[in-house]
């Protein structure tokens, strides 16, 4: 295959200088992720996955090594250039949703477009936000504020916000950490649907159940990759949901 990787990590190291002790959080990671992949990055706490995530998300720069995102060497960019990369190339989905409260769903989704280098006219912002919300199945809830939405719905708004600038990469940090199992499966269903449409996804999680919805699993330990393999017996969200419903039905009948 001759396609260029979306993410190319080359011998990435990250050292934090906190007080007298240097913390070597990431110790030489090399990784290629190609368009259309759906990757889970796994590891226990302290494995360096959050640090790696921050660097992939262009929130932080590696101490040494190189990182090409969509052909751009991000590891050498300054603060403002990193902000532009985050705006144009990456969509973020967080564990805590991180929506702006007292701001309705549509305005939350429009927010990244306010910071676009190219001026996007207000009516186009509006249309694109509505398209993104419809994509995650929340077209009817555009005027709702976050406190009027369930956790799953809030996370869908966050996904719509991540997609609205048409990024090369969707980055999710423990996206199901605050959600119950059924809602988690629903969110994974949204991700699988997006992935089928060709969107590249990278997700950090420590739950194996969630990771099984992806196509490729990368496991970290002590700042190094220990496993990098394709997912066997991949879960499909629709089937899982059906099975969950049947189980609930069975519990009801039994009681």
């Amino acid at each position, binding site marked *: 295959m001759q396609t260029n990787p979306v993410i190319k990590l080359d011998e990435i190291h990250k050292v934090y200088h906190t007080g007298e002790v240097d913390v070597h959080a990431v110790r030489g990671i090399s990784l290629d992720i190609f368009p259309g992949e759906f990757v889970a990055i796994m590891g226990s706490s302290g494995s360096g996955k959050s640090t790696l995530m921050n660097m992939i998300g262009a*929130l932080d720069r590696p101490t040494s090594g190189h990182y090409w995102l969509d052909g751009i060497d991000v590891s050498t960019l300054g603060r403002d250039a990193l902000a532009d990369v985050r705006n144009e190339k990456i969509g973020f989905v*967080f564990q805590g949703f991180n929506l702006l409260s007292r701001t309705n769903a549509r305005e939350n989704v429009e927010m990244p477009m306010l910071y676009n280098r190219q001026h996007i006219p207000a009516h186009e912002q509006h249309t694109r936000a509505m398209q993104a919300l419809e994509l995650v199945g929340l077209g009817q809830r555009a005027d709702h504020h976050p406190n009027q939405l369930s956790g799953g719905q809030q996370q869908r708004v966050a996904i719509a916000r991540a997609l609205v600038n048409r990024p090369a990469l969707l980055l999710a940090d423990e996206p199901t950490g605050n959600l119950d199992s059924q809602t988690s499966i629903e969110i994974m269903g949204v991700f699988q649907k997006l992935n089928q449409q060709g969107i590249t996804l990278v997700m950090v999680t420590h739950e194996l159940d969630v990771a099984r919805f992806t196509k490729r699993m990368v496991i970290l330990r002590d700042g190094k990759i220990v496993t990098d393999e394709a997912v066997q017996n991949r879960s499909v969200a629709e089937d899982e949901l059906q099975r969950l419903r049947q189980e609930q039905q069975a519990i009801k009948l039994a009681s």
Partner: protein
Amino acid sequence: MRIFASIRIAGRALRRNKMRSLLTMLGIIIGVGAVIGAVSLTSGATKQVEDQVSSLGESVVTVFSGNFTSGGMRGGWGSAPTLTVPDAEAIAGLKNVVAISPEVRDREQVLANGLNWNTQVLGESPDYPQIRNWTIASGSMFSDVDVRSLAKSAVIGKTVADELFPNENPVGQTVRIRNLPFLVVGLLGSKGFNLFGQDQDDVVIVPYSSHMHRITTRTFVNDILVEAASDQAIDGVQQDITDLLLTRHHSKEQDFTVRNQLELMQAVTATSRTMGFLLAGVAAVSLVVGGIGIMNIMLVSVTERTREIGIRMAVGARAADILVQFLIEAVTLSAIGGVIGIGGGMTFSWLIARFQHLPTVTPVAWIVIAVVSSAFIGIVSGFYPAWKASKLDPIDALRYE
């Protein structure tokens, strides 16, 4: 530019906390309101003074007699009898002099109609009403012939008329001054109180010659009123009078003084200016206090919205975007506060004007100053919090609880 987006974001943030925004603005509202109120009142007072002085006649020059020195004690201006009627006549011949009136002043008991009244009796020339911009309400002014013939004619002010001839037309009647009958030929229009609180209508005016020969037996006049052709001619006329009188009096030392109404006006308005500056100073202090209030709230707001800042940075806001957003919030707070303050200050001074009968004028320049300085205070007090916000690390800001 994304400035309009930033303005929208700032507006939304301020509307979210209406009560807090209002309280924050209060400092600026009070500061600007105080400045505008103080300036309106003092410039109103200044305007009143200027109006009164110009009603005296702006192009009038007054020559006072000199200072009387006896055994080393100096009596001050007007204490020495140095000015004479021939001096006045000589001044009348100068260039750009349109009218003169040698003035003699005295207080006398005036009798009429079985009533009596103590009042100021002035000896003047027939030009006096013209010099003072004074109208004759009924009858007429006495003439030059009256001056030459030492006529017993008088023109009386409204207060004197009210006291001596209640419900009667005084013109054609007789008043007695030092037992001499003076025929009232005219009634002056009402002029009201002057700057020093004196009733200008409490006056009887007779020809200066009659005053000097019949009422008092003086050979010198108190002062000479001179009207110049125009405002611009005043300086020249003052100089000419000084030169002329120095020659006529053959004295090395100047035994008279020449003043114009402008100087008088400046002396009086200086007081109200000082007062105005004092009030403006107090108001400026409260503006600074208002600015500190804004800075305080903006700092709280930045801490409170650390997470929001993190989210915005994560989706691509540059440091400058965050800086501008918070700066605009601060400037919006202080600018709206400034506008409300201007409205409040003007309303306040309008109310004062209504109930205290004081004139108020709000100079446009001060409105501009108020707007500019409140926006400036917004920028200054908003800058540090905004800068602090823009320097946040997106990772830390996102983790902030």
